[in-house]
């Protein structure tokens, strides 16, 4: 198979996934399209570096994220990024890592039946509201089906960090979705004692 045919067979089937990833990163369809175009162009030029048999999807995600970060470095002021990162680190530090359930849900709906009632758009909106580092981990794992090792490669972090970001991100997301389910009457919180 020539270069173009093998690229079309292995890389192009991931176009939708890369577009969605680019859309989440950049936040606008126009920027996402530019990002996708640049990603596939670079991937095509570097096709020799791709190891056949490994997942092209995570390789493309890695390229996409690298381009995005470099573009952002150029356009965003450094102190803004530092402030944002400090804010989310502070927030993350206050959470317990003891068990995956949080107190209110384990009392009102221990088996999580309310998740079945939630509207897809509200789930996607709640994911978007997560701090970037948690959002990316949850997105790559739960929505795109990447393994921990693949996520570690895409986000350029150790596997242990992938696990803790997934844990915290999922916890925050569960709390958001629980609050949403209460607002919309899918669960009725039990009255507090006293």
């Amino acid at each position: 198979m020539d270069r173009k045919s093998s690229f079309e067979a292995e890389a192009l089937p991931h176009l939708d996934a890369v577009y969605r990833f680019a859309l989440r990163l950049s936040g606008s369809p126009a920027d996402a399209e530019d990002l996708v175009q640049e990603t596939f162009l670079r991937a095509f030029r570097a096709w020799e570096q791709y190891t056949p048999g490994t997942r092209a999807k995570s390789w493309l995600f890695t390229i996409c994220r690298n381009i995005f970060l470099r573009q952002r470095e150029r356009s965003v002021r450094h102190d803004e990024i530092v402030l944002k990162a400090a804010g989310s680190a502070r927030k993350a530090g206050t959470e317990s890592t003891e068990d995956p359930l949080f107190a209110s849900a384990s009392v009102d709906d221990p088996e999580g039946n309310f998740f079945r009632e939630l509207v897809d758009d509200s789930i996607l909106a709640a994911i978007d509201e997560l701090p970037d580092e948690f959002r990316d981990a949850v997105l790559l794992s739960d929505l795109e089906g990447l393994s921990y090792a693949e996520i570690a490669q895409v986000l350029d972090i150790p596997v242990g960090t992938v696990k803790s970001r997934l844990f915290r991100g999922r916890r925050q997301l569960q709390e958001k979705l629980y609050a949403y389910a209460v607002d919309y009457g899918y669960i009725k919180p039990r009255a507090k004692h006293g």
Partner: protein
Amino acid sequence: MDRTTCREAVARLYEYLDGELSPEAAEAVRRHFEICKQCYPQLCFCQAFQEALRRAARGLPCAPEHLRARLAALLRDEAARHDA
């Protein structure tokens, strides 16, 4: 005999659901959840959560047609340049 403690099982819950454990470790965790009344709801809770996310993922947008077409043209040009 089940040697996995509740603490261990819950700590490995996501690794279990994400398919990140070895077959032996996964089997040990699975057996614990099967017989433990306290831990079982936590498994259900996280499964329901992940199913909801996967369901929501099906509603995510696809790449627009004009992007697909533009990309095809771009690759054609690039391949021609590469072969030349």
